[in-house]
Every structure is written in structure tokens, then in C-alpha cells.
């Protein structure tokens, strides 16, 4: 099953390779990984999308917690969360296709962020389903280049306090 794991880490060199090395060394999957500093510039937040059965996910969470540069690990699937991904899509546009490209952009509430006589670059943000849908619609026009950020996710503010697994709470 797919899980989204949110990992707070020290913002210093080498941390990404420790996390990536853990996944490759132990044969865990990474579907996507995104990372950027948090409000506190000494920390970064990683969003890792991974797959595995319950035992593997438990191991992933524990192994991440064991890394000394990891400050906090939250398996977002334990509670409600929202997720978003951004894609930048460069589309070939023949003169007769330009209106269609704009219509599709409009329908998906996406933006054209760059335009040349032969291309539009479209920025779209949303769920994975939405991004895949717009890609499917734009494909007949001819996609020249596509870049996706990978997903970021955040827990929904709970009605009751969230059960998170911090390092101190990592006891069984």
C-alpha cells in the first residue's frame, strides 16, 4: 500500500544521502521525494512517497527514526492528510491548437507561465489524479517536456489531537 511519510531532518549536507542510502540499502521503494527547508532554517522537511505492506512501512518509519539527523517522522496515512503536486508541462502548439491548449489550461485552473510562438509552458497544481488527467488531455497536442515536483503533503488539522510518532514517542 502507498504511504506518504513526512520526515523532519537537520538541514545540513549529507542528510539527503543518508535517507536515500537507507532506502536503497534496505531495498525500500521511493516513489517520490521532495525536500525543502522549514520555517526554522536549521531543519528541512522531506515528503517521501513509498509503498510496502504494514511490516515494511513500520520498518521504514523505525529506520528513519534511527537516523541521527532525523528529528521527527510522521506516517501521514495514520490520519487524514491533504496532498498536492505541481507539474510544469511544455506543450508544442501549432497555431490551430493554441486555443485548445488554453481551454484545457483553464478547465484545470492551471496557468500558462511561458509562451513562445510554438509552445506554451503550463503550470498545474493538484492531486496526482488531476495532474495525470491534464497530461492525458495535453498529450495529443504534443508534450515536449514534463517535470513534476513529486508530492508534498500535510496532515489535516484534527478534531482530536493527532497521533504522531516522534522520536521520544517511538516506544512500542
Amino acid at each position, binding site marked *: 500500500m502507498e504511504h506518504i511519510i513526512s520526515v523532519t*531532518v*537537520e538541514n545540513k549536507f*549529507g542528510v539527503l*544521502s*543518508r535517507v536515500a*542510502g537507507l532506502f536503497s*540499502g534496505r531495498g525500500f521503494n521511493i516513489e517520490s521525494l521532495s525536500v525543502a527547508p522549514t520555517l526554522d532554517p536549521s531543519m528541512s522537511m522531506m515528503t517521501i512517497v513509498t509503498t510496502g505492506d504494514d*511490516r515494511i512501512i*513500520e*520498518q521504514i518509519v*523505525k*529506520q528513519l*527514526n*534511527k*537516523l*541521527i*539527523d*532525523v*528529528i521527527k517522522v510522521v506516517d501521514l496515512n495514520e490520519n487524514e492528510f491533504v496532498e498536492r503536486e505541481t507539474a510544469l508541462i511544455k506543450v508544442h502548439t501549432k497555431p490551430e491548437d493554441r486555443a485548445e491548449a488554453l481551454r484545457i489550461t483553464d478547465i484545470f485552473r492551471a496557468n500558462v507561465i511561458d509562451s513562445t510562438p510554438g509552445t506554451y509552458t503550463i503550470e498545474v497544481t493538484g492531486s496526482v489524479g488531476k495532474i495525470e488527467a491534464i497530461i492525458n488531455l495535453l498529450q495529443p497536442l504534443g508534450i515536449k517536456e514534463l517535470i513534476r515536483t513529486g508530492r508534498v503533503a500535510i496532515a489535516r488539522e484534527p478534531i482530536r489531537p493527532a497521533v504522531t510518532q516522534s*522520536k*521520544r514517542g*517511538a*516506544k*512500542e
Partner: protein
Amino acid sequence: MKLTGAEIFLESLRKEGVRTIFALPGGVVLKIFDILHQQKDIQVILTRHEQGAGHMAEGYAKATGKAGVALVTSGPGMTNVITALADAYMDSVPLVCFSGQVPTSLIGNDAFQEADNIGLSRPCTKYNFLVKDVNDLAMTIKEAFYVATTGRPGPVLVDIPKDVSMNKADFKYPASVSIRGYNPTYEGNKWQIKQAAELIAKAKKPVLYVGGGVIFSGASAELIELAEMTNIPVDMTLMALGGFPGEHPLSMGMMGMHGTYWANMAVHYSDLVVAVGARFDDRVTGKVSEFCPHAKVIHIDIDPTSIRKNVNVDIPIVGDCKIVLRELIQALRATVNGDQKELRKPWWDQINDWKRAHPLAYEQDPGGPIKPQHVIKRLYELTKDRDPIVSTDVGQHQMWTAQYFKLAQPNRWLTSGGLGTMGFGFPAAMGAQAAFPDRLVLCVAGDGSVQMNTQELATAVVNKLPVKVIVINNRYHGMVRQWQDLFYEGRYASSYLDVYPDFVKLAEAYGAVGLRATKVSELDGAITEAIAINKPVFLDVPVDQYENCYPMIPAGGCNHEMILADPPELKKKQKAGAPAPVAGEDKDTILTA
């Protein structure tokens, strides 16, 4: 006053109470060696290879319980010590390894003797540091010792570029250290401990399955108390030997692939397994899906990742073995009613039947070739009163030593368990001897394994480390040959080692003492002579070449399905026996398949 990085290094080691380091110099660490050369508090043992330095630091750590320290240079110095780091990581040995690095301005330029020390060591250290600023050096060293020795111990690397060792900074050694992402759990969950106590008190066929965590947390006394108050048999892993007295009536000896018949049968048929500081390694569990199929499992370990990694656990308790066992004993005092001895009498009757059915045994023909088991049994009997420290290499001799050398106390057993590093034993013994110059330190080695680090004979002689190496010499990679006997129809691919070297002459070439016992009648005399000599000794014992180590659970087999002796077709060759040939003797007598 400002100190250079090298001086800060020295002062920091003094503050950590380091007495001995194992080291080999090179261009980028010369400043540090220069400072070490001008002082007397810290003994610098110059090794002949960085792998030896790493294993010596491991031996030192295992025997003392303190962090072992190694110092190596950049590039090849670093790559050579990797094996020891990986070994220490697998066996949770507290180690702080310092490596030299090219000057910070050259990092990444493919400079002479540059290697990515951080990248190389990342998968085989608990943590590693690159010190880029001399002002961070003291704090980094403090953190390195803290991380290496707390929680589940392990190796830590500190990479020091040349300019950092030469630049100056104010020195103030931090009094304490706090790392926000690193807070090991020591106290077990009280509720879980209570649940565990209730399960233990009721269990009719329980087994304690104890691992190396018992040694590192110093939990032997608690373990003995727990076992005695509940009358529960104690199965030990290879790493736990000495953690519970080998001659204790509740000791079942070693479990696992070459464990005793009764230890493996007991765990298979038990109704409760209490795992303490162990990690359910495949050499212990055999076929993991059928490991202790009838039992509930309580698992006490300081490392949460060890729990539920390989087997399902009913009651997980994250915490330090010593602290948790103490609480468990208290909880049991409140829980136990009735006689635990009486409750478990049928279980012990069953275990004693297993013991009688298949004891550890070998047949020593007084006139025939020396059996390797006999060497270890005699070594044990002739030295046990001196409370020796015993190291081993990896292979058949290691398993026989685990079976026959019944250690009474912890921190006496130095062996490479997880990584299975041949060549570990001799340098590890030297590390222990450096920590305890007056103790008897034995190394039971195989002729194959020991050749991976014989260059350290020079280190032993020069530094007056009088370790006694008993070479169980069958002229084979014995365990490889055993697997070839059992699973490859006796085709000995690359396992025969021929008669070289002559270990007596080899020892003598380095200025050590070489002895040899070729007959059963010479064995006791040779052992007695070896341990009386206050110098490094190689005692070469040519043994029956075809002796195999049993019981044996084939890889992936179940714990109750042990091979107990050679299959009949192998028996014939066994029966004939063949002493290992000695260098210089007629080579035509060598039997090869």
C-alpha cells in the same frame, strides 16, 4: 590560548579517558601523529595494516566495554579500515575511528590519496562526521564518543582534513552533549513489562533467547537472577557467550545453525520465547516462518528497528536490557505465585532427554589424528582457571570454540558474528591484550582465517602483546569444505589451502614463538608451554582434515531439523581420518577429492 587541531584532538582524547589507540600514519594525519609522539598518556600502537587497527580497537572495546579508538590516514587508510567498521556495525561494537582527509580546499578534486570517507563509511557506521572547521573539532569528538557508546553502540567515523589538524582554535571540551534527533530509550514501558511478567509466570515451556545486548548493557547479573528465580533455560546466541555462565545448570549453550541440539529443540517447542538484546538473525532463526511456531514472543531490545524486523512479536519492550530486566524481576516478584521449579519440571525433563539423546560429542582415537574439538576442549580445561579472554576467527573452529569453550563471564569472548570477518581473531586478541596486559588472551584461529592478518605478528612482537594463537590447522577453508561435502558432492572448489605457510617458521620470522603439536599425546604439553611463554605464540595444531561441525541446521532449514552427523557416504572418509600435512613433509600424503 589557542591550540592546533592536532592538540585539540589529543586533549579531547585525554578528556574521554582514552589510554590506547591503534593507528597507522599517512601524509594528511602526520600533524596528529607528531603531537601524539610528544606525549606519554596515550599509548599509540602502530599496526601493520589499517584493518588490523580496526579489529584491535574492536577487541579492546569488547573486552573493556569502552569505545575502541583507531586512527588512519585518507584514501587507502580509510578503505582498509572499512571491513572493521562494517564488522563493528553488525556486532554493535562501540568504536571511534578517526580518518585523515585531504585539505578542505582540495576535497572533491581527486587529490592524492583522497577518498570520499563519509560516503564510503555511511552504510557501515552508526554516524559519521566531516570536520570542516577546527572550531567544531572538540564538540565533534565529544559527540562521536557519545553516539558510539550510548543506545545501541556502534562505530562512528570522524574525518579530519589536514588543514583542520593544523589550524588553531580555542579549546574548551564540552561538558555535555545533546543531539535533538538522537534520544535512545532506556526505560522500558511499564505496562508492557507487567504484561511480560504475567506471560512468563504462566509459561510452561519458556526459553530465554539472549544476544549480545546482554553483554553491552552489562545485564549478566540480572539475567542470572531472572533465570534462577523462574527456572527458565537460557539459550545464547554466538554474540551472547559469556553473558550467562556456560557451566550454569540453566545454560543451554549456543543456539542457532551450529548450536546444541537441546537449545534448538527447546526454542522450537517452547510456548514462550523471551528474547533479550538479540535480533533474530537468520543464523539463529533458520527458516524464519517456522521459528518457534508454538510460542508467544517477548522481545526486549534497545533498538526499535530490531523489533518485528524478522519475526512477529507479541510483547515488544524497547529499552536497555539491564534496566528492563531489573524491572521485569520486580514485576515477576509481584506476579509469581506457586513454585516455578515445579511448574517447569516436565519441561526440564524434556530438555534433559534431548541433552541425553544428542550430546556434543566427538571420538578422539589416542593414536589417530587430533580432532579439532579435542584441541578446544583441552585448551578450555587447561586454561579455565585463569579466566582467559578468547577470540576466534570465522569458520569451523569458531563454532567448535563456541560449543566447547564454556565462558563464565561477559567481555571474555571476542568473535565476529554478524559480518563473519575472517582475520578478525588475531588483531582482536591483541586489542584485548593491550587493554589487559596481565591477562591470558587466547586466539583460536583457523589456518585459512588467520592468514588474512598475519602481518600483525610484527605489531604483537614490537608492542609486547603476548597473545596465544592456536591455529586449528586442517589445510582447508574448513567450513567451505564442509558445505562442499554436504551440498556440492564433495567437490572442493578453491577450499584446499595446501601446506603453506609453515606457521612455526612464520612466527619465528617475526620474532614470535612458534610451536607445533602433531600427536594427541603432545597436545597438553604444547598448550601448557604456550601459555607459560610471555611472548606472542603461534601454536600450530594439524588436525583431522575432514572433521565436520555438528549439529548443523542447513541454511533456510528449521531449528528442529538438525543434521547431527556426517551422512553415511561421508562417514567413510571421516572414519579414515587424515592428519593435516605439515609443511616440508611428503606432500603425496595429501588427500584431495
